[in-house]
């Protein structure tokens, strides 16, 4: 589904991704962990096409297409979804109207007519239930005045509504209490299928107790320095990131 090859990117002339290789297949959940400033969120931003992130080398192929060539909205319509670390507030635009617009755009891209009001409402109710999203929040302005937890849960609700093939969760667990974390994880688990894939970016192992990944990668200084299974996450929890930093430094030195 997603093939990242030797991806280099910079922000304001500062190199932040220094050669990422990653392959994600349908049905898989990949966790990307790493210390602060290692480039985790930058990777998400580059994949989603955020302005200001310049790819200097490498390529990203998403379902056979050159993802980097596509405008952000086209990537979204193709099925790339980013659950934001800090979801944006848009006053006066109701959550439900926003989703209706988004869904209609995505469907139009696939040459499908927009859902009629009744179908849309039905879908919305169904998905609210699935991810345990508060009906009251559906009609409120998009994220306006939402608590941190409500915003994150809204991201998962949107994910459920838009049914992307690749979902990137950028530190969705940050700022969530344990109950909210459980609900978010439960939602994601229900949405997992053999047809879609998830990239879960997190600083802590905690979320991975609830969303069990197939693979865990450690990002450090713009590179994936170690990959493994869920046991790697446990190891990180126990030993921290320092041993990996050492290891990667040695690796860098040995390549010189």
């Amino acid at each position, binding site marked *: 589904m997603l093939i990242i090859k030797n991806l280099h990117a910079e922000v304001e002339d500062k190199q932040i991704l220094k050669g990422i290789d990653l392959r994600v297949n349908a049905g898989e959940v990949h966790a990307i962990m790493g210390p602060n400033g290692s480039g985790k969120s930058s990777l998400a931003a580059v994949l989603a096409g955020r302005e200001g992130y310049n790819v200097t080398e490498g390529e990203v192929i998403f379902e056979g297409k050159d993802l980097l060539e596509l405008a952000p909205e086209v990537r979204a*319509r193709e099925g790339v979804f980013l659950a934001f670390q800090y979801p944006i507030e848009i006053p006066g*635009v109701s959550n439900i109207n926003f989703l209706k617009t988004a869904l209609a755009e995505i469907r139009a891209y696939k040459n499908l007519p927009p859902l009629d009001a009744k179908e849309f409402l039905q879908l919305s109710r169904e998905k609210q239930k699935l991810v345990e999203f508060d009906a009251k929040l559906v009609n409120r302005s998009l994220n306006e005045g939402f608590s941190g937890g409500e915003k994150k849960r809204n991201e998962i609700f949107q994910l459920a509504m838009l049914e992307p093939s690749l979902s990137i969760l950028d530190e969705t667990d940050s700022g969530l209490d344990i109950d909210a974390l459980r609900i978010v994880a439960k939602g994601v688990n229900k949405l997992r299928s053999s047809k879609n894939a998830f990239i879960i970016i997190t600083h802590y192992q905690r979320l991975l107790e609830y969303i069990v990944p197939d693979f865990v990668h450690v990002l450090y200084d713009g590179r994936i320095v170690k990959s493994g299974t869920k046991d790697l996450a446990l190891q990180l929890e126990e030993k921290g990131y320092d041993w990996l930093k050492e290891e990667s430094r040695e690796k860098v030195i040995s390549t010189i």
Partner: protein
Amino acid sequence: MANDNEIIDNIANKEYEFGFVTDIEMDVAPAGLNEDTIRYISEKKKEPEWLLEWRLKGLQAFGRQKLPDWQNFVLPAIDFQKISYYAAPKNKKKYDSLDQVDPELLATFEKLGIPLSEQKALAGVAVDVVFDSVSVKTTYKEKLKELGIIFCSFGEAVQEHPELVRKYVGSVVPYSDNIFAALNAAAFSDGSFVYIPKGVRCPMELSTYFRINTENTGQFERTLIIADEGSYVSYLEGCTAPMRDENQLHAAVVELIALGNAEIKYSTVQNWYPGDKDGKGGIYNFVTKRGICKGANSKISWTQVETGSAITWKYPSVILQGDHSTGEFYSVAVTRNKQIADTGTKMHHIGRGTRSRIISKGISAGQGQNSYRGLVQIGPKADGARNFTQCDSLLIGDRCGAHTFPYIESKNNTATVEHEATTSKIGEDQIFYLNQRGIDSEKAVALIINGYAREVLNQLPMEFAVEAQKLLSITLEGSVG
């Protein structure tokens, strides 16, 4: 990928959608403003002597007054002697049905997207069309007549209800109020007149579409709305104008009178030609709008969506004379290219327990300049008066401006006055967030703007709100490459 600058540049290059000229024979007065012109207009309209005298007093007041110098923009020189003060389609008999109306005129309305036939169907709107200066068609008149409601052109009211006109004209906006009001009093062409009798709730939205059409013709409408005790009326005013190369002055006067327990809701969507991207050729919209809540528990509500004109300069105001009367002002003003808006409201609290609410939303793009100017005045007898003002500015790009000039004068220490103000920019973050959900930047900006203006748009009657929403989106159409 689109960035803010591209959006702005594209907004700047957006051509005016409704730029076309209707070719209909006109009866035009020679240019110039003097006693002869006033007599010519008055005679053409077969006015009674008292009205001619009133006009002449207006002319004198105009001669005494100076152009204001306090506004937050440079007032272009206006040669009042170069303007023609009267233009009416030559063929001006009254029509019984749409079939008799000049097909070219109807086509004009088709282009504007407001076919009368459709208007009629839409929630039973009676449309009094002012095409340049003379009323062409008044619909639903009969139905309103049954209820005793008078809805006609100003000129007709002068002929048929002179006692009402004489009693109220100039009672809220005197001929000496300001230079443009004086000009209007002297030279007003036509306009609308509404009278709602005691206890009658007007069953439909009353609507007038104004359109400026003759080159070099100042348009000076005068609207007078009287809501007698315990009555209710909602009045809609919408305007679009064809493309011009020379600036056109528009100095209208609107007077509203609400007697005890009466309510008047006055809504405007203004989309006059704003000028090209260099600001050349747009309309000067210098309007005096004022209402008086004369009786106790009466209410006047102004709602305006201002997207057009080179310069918009107006302050729809309410004099809260009756005890426990309410004044409201809801406004969205959009400026782009080199457009200027200096608008706001005045709430004069005179009676006890009077309340006012002001919600102003300015949107500036390109090199547009948007000023909110408001006065909340609490008189010594206005015990327990309350005002709430919220004044928000939204900036698109870094070459536009937003300015706020709130004035508060309180002579009563039992009054409560609140003022809130915010300034924000459409963030790249917001646009990217919507992009990431499959919505392109152009739609994203339209969505954000409509969301921002929601509180005001909600005040508009349904069909008008849709039009206003469309207008806000059209404003930004083609804004992203």
